[in-house]
Each structure stands twice: as structure tokens, then as C-alpha cells.
């Protein structure tokens, strides 16, 4: 789907002052991020800090309500777009636990996705085969229903195949390393890094542990605490985190004054 021209194209995902509510609860309280083509950003945070909410809100999962702020990709406002329109704008996301879709095959889905943007559906089969080889995804598994009866590693290899065929501008990887063996993590991370170099893919990798960053090398690390970025730095931030855990940042937050909104729109 990508062309030589798009390979060079610069894209930027910009998340500004993002406030997101899930099931009536505020989960994100003003997140700011910019991810440009070719960059790898890691968002790290403890459980409940809003990491998965950030991933879902950017992709537009129903039930994740943006109450304030904006999400743009190349100046296109994504907030009002449906998930498939966001995908067409160049966004891709992997899920921590990819959803099983019984009776729907990988190729089947990718053919429809490719056809929807005017691509050549007949080219998908060969692309899938080539991508499967790159991440060592068992060709027999290509004919199974999406994510049905696949191990954690097989699911992530399948998602790497999808990324390889769809060639998005920006990929959001939610807990890529969860439920994954070392070999699969290495294969999938390698494919993603390759895409950042060859296809200028920008990556937002969401993770609890720094283990992921030993195989997927982040240029920028953000610490997410209580639904907001507490600190942004280079790879050394992940190293520091490895030593201290999240406590230093959590303490900082606890000392800051707690805002309480009583009724009405808290973001006039």
C-alpha cells in the first residue's frame, strides 16, 4: 500500500491536553505527546495509570470518550473519526489481548482493509506470505480465524504481519511484551524497528516493564502517572525506572494539590 513516495513522508501524531472518560470515570487528565515518523516513543506507567486507555482513545474504541483536548495525525483531527477512518489516516494499534474473531481469517480481513482504501486485494496473499516469513509466523496458522487458538506469541506475530501489510504511518503497541516468549518478542520487535527505518514508521509503545525496551529501542520515554505525563526523557529514564520503580513519580503526584470539580464542565 505504501509507495516510495510515502516512505519518505513525514507524519506526526499529536496528542494535546487529552482528557478521556471511561464508564463515567476520568482516566486521562491532560496527556501531551508528539510522535513523529521514524521515532520510537515508550509510554511507561504503573497499573491503572491510563496506559491502555491512551492506546484505545487514540484508536477510537467505543466507550472511550474524549471530553477535552485533541488527537491529530498530520493535522487531521482524529477525535470525530471512527476507528476505520483513523486507520485510513495511517494509524495502527496492537492490543494487549487481541480479540478473537471467529470465522474471519487474517487474509480475509486484510483484503477488505486494502480494498477499502482502493488497494489491490489480489496482492494481499503474497504480501501476507512474505510478512509471515519475516516474523516466522507459521503459514498454517494464516488460515485460522483471527486470534482464535493462537498463543500469545502467535497473536503478536499475526499483528506484526498485519502491520507489515497495512504499512501504517504510526503504530500504537499496547503491552506488546505481555504473554510473549522471548523469541516472538525479538522477532516482532525486529520487524517493527525495521519498519521505523525502512518505512519511517512512528511508534508509540505502551508498556509496564522496561523489558520491552531491551529489544525495541526507544528514543523517547514518557512516564504516565494518574492519567498525565509526569516526566519525559531519553532511554536513561527507563533505566532509572528499572532501579527505583514508579514510586518517585507517584510521590511527586501525591504532593501536588488535588483538584476537585463540583458539577458542570470541568474544562470550560
Amino acid at each position, binding site marked *: 500500500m505504501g509507495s516510495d513516495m510515502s516512505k519518505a513522508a513525514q507524519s506526526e501524531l499529536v496528542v494535546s491536553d487529552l482528557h478521556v472518560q471511561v464508564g463515567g470515570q476520568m482516566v486521562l487528565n491532560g496527556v501531551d505527546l508528539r510522535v513523529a515518523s521514524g521515532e520510537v516513543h515508550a509510554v511507561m506507567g504503573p497499573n491503572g495509570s491510563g496506559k491502555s486507555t491512551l492506546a484505545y482513545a487514540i484508536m477510537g474504541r467505543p466507550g472511550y470518550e474524549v471530553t477535552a483536548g485533541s488527537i491529530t495525525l498530520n493535522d487531521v483531527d482524529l477525535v470525530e473519526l471512527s476507528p476505520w477512518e483513523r486507520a485510513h489516516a495511517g494509524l495502527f494499534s496492537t492490543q494487549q489481548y487481541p480479540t478473537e474473531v471467529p470465522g474471519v481469517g487474517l487474509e480475509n480481513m486484510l483484503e*477488505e482493509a486494502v480494498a477499502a482504501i482502493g488497494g489491490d486485494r489480489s496482492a494481499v496473499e503474497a504480501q501476507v506470505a512474505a510478512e509471515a516469513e519475516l516474523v516466522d509466523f507459521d503459514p498454517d496458522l494464516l488460515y485460522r480465524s483471527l486470534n482464535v487458538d493462537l498463543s500469545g506469541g502467535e497473536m503478536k506475530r499475526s499483528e506484526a504481519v498485519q502491520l507489515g501489510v*497495512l504499512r501504517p504511518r504510526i503504530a500504537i503497541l499496547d503491552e506488546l511484551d505481555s504473554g510473549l516468549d522471548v523469541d516472538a518478542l525479538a522477532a516482532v520487535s525486529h520487524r517493527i524497528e525495521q519498519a521505523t527505518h525502512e518505512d519511517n514508521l512512528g511508534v508509540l509503545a505502551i508498556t509496564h516493564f522496561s523489558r520491552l525496551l531491551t529489544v525495541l529501542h526507544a528514543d523517547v520515554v514518557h512516564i504516565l502517572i494518574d492519567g498525565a505525563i509526569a516526566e519525559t526523557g531519553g532511554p536513561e529514564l527507563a533505566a532509572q525506572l528499572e532501579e527505583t520503580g514508579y514510586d518517585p513519580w507517584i510521590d511527586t503526584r501525591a504532593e501536588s494539590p488535588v483538584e476537585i470539580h463540583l458539577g458542570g464542565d470541568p474544562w470550560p
Partner: protein
Amino acid sequence: MIETQFTPDAAGAIPGPDWLARRRVAAAEQVAAAAMPSVEEEVWRYTPIGQLDLSRYQLADGGGVSPVAVPEHSVMADTSNGRLCGVELPAEVADQGVEVRPLGDDDAELAASVDVDLFALMNAAFSVEPLLVRVPSGVNVEGPIVVRHWLDADGGAAFPRLIVDAGADSSVEVLELYGSADVSAFVSPVIEIRVAAAARVGYLAVQDLGPKVWHIGSQVSHIGAQAHLRASSAALGGEYARTRLDTHLSGRGATGDLISLYFGDGEQTLDFRTFQDHAAPDTTSTLLFKGAVDDASRSVYTGLIRVRPDARGTNAYQTNRNIKLSEDAWAESVPNLEIENNEVHCSHASAVGPIDGDQLFYLESRGVPTDTAERLIVTGFFNEVLDQFPVPGAMPAVRERLDSKIAGLSHHGVDGGSGS
């Protein structure tokens, strides 16, 4: 008392063997003495049976032959408005001893009663030429035996009856195709399937009747020792289309797979009543019914697994899943177990719900537009059933017809998914 043109005199006037004439009159007398079913009865609950006015219909003469395409087959038979209008039995199949013909003078033993309700009784009384498919012991029939039914008489009532008699250790597949012109008609088929010891029978009914046709059918099967029946249906057409399945696992080690799909749209009501009757030890039945209801259509599934006291070692499963595709559509699912032996494995599962919001999000997040994603999910939902259907040659046509129904999905709100 039902006062209609469906009288004992009318039944007695139908030509045929003496034994059959006597049975017809006896059945018609029972019909005349019976009351119309009512939604007060459990087996008719949720149905529009109160709207049925039998006086609107009468036995019709034969009309045209079905234009519905048939897959490659061994034997072919046609009915038109319930009357047999042709059997094509190639010599090489006949030479195997396979019989495909109307019941004759020597078939009185086939008079055994399978009259599960008023409409099966009406079939016994008014079926003009009950069709027998008999496969001798040890014979494997290559290619399906196809029976095509066509209705084109407005106001016509048709009572096709098919008896499949598979001898010991034989194997055969039977495909029934129901179609109609755009007429208002009533069809009440009865299918008896007898699977003798160690025989293997695959049966598929594709019901694609017009939107003004009422279909009230009954399928009764008896599965012998170590025998295997796979009985399937795709219910796509009809205004009110009901099938009752009585599956008797009568011989030790018998297996019955009951695999069906249905797709309602417009104002259709599709109705299924299933009975898995385990009467012998070590018997297995697996039921999978999957349906979708769109527009203002309705579906009813009620099922009962019965394990009789002698049927130790029974494995019985019953699964009914429904996708509700529009706000105005409605699906009812009522599974039941009645177990009289402790050494059994039984389970039942049922579900009615919209298209899964998480599945929809997954496909959409890959760039598949909502409409296409819904179609993929619904098609995928039915693939589990289609993959298990017998008569593989019939699959392209079934898929095509199902796809055309899925292509007309109404747009609707779906489950919005939940946060985490």
C-alpha cells in the same frame, strides 16, 4: 374441530395403495377432530400460529418445475406444489439397488406413525405421493440424492413427504431444496430418516421459500447402533417457517449431529423445536444452531435433550447462538435438559446478542469500514456451521444466498464495547 376443505373424504379421494388410503382417511379423521394449535401450548409459544387460516389454502395441481440450480448428484427428483413430477434415477445407481420412487402396495411397513403435531397429521392425510429413498445394506451412494420442491400455485397447500431408509452399513447424502414463486402458499413437509446399524447419512435442507409462504415442517429420525446421522438445514425464506426435529438415538453407539443456520429479515419468523432423545447407551448427539435476525424478523429456538434411564454413557450437547442485527428484531432461545441417568455428559448453551463490539473494533482498527466489518463478522459467525454441513457441492449456492442476505444488513446501533 377444524372445519376446512381438508376432510376425510378429500383424503380418501387421493389415489394410491389401499394401505395408504386407509391411513390417509384415519389421519384426516384425527385432523378433523383436532383443535388448532395455540400459543398457549409450549411448543407453539412465540409463534404467529393464531394467524393461520387453513381455509385460505387448498391442494393444488402440479405446476412448474423448480428453476433452482442443483449441484452434481446421483439421483434427482422434483415435486411441484407437493406433487411428484419427475425422478431421474440413472441405471448405474438403480443397479446398486437404490430405490427412489413413490410409496407402493408393498410399503405398508412404512406406515409407522411419526405424526408429531397437527400438521404432520395433515401431511399423513394429504401427501399425494410420499417419496421413498431406499439404500440397500452395504451400498455407498456416490453423490447426493437431490429432491427439489417448487411451489407456484397461489393459495396452494402442499404436503411433501420424504422417507429416507438407509440400510445397515450403507452411506448416502440427501439434499432437499425448497423454493417458490412469489405466491401465498402453505407447505407442510415431513421427512423421516431411518439410519440402520452402522449406516452413515448426511441430510441437508435448504429452505429458500418466498416471503408469503408458510412452512410448517417436521423431521423425524431414528439412528441405529453405531450409525451416524448428520442432519442440517439452512432456513432462509418463508413468512413463518418452522421445523420441528425429533431425533431418536435408538441404537447403542448411535451419533446424531444436528447443524443448522437461519437468517431472518423483513418480517419473517423462523422457528425451530428440537428434541434429542437418547434411548440407548453410549449415544452422542451434538446440536449447533446459529441464527441471525435483521429488520423486524423474529426467531425462536427451543430445544430439549432427553436422556432416558437406559441411556448411560450419553454425550449430548446443545448450542444455540443468535445475533440480533436490528433494534426491531427479536430472538428467543430456550434450551432444556431432562436427564434420567447419572452417567452422562450433557451441556447446553444459548446466547442472543448484537454484533460483538470488540470484534467490530478489532476489524475497524485495521481499516475495515463498519459495514464491511459487520458483514465479515456475521459471515464468520455462520462459517462454523457451514464448515460442518454435509453435501459440499451445495455450499457455493448456500453461501451465495446467505451472502446476499448478509449484504442487506440493516444499519443499527451495536454494543458499544466497554472500557477497561
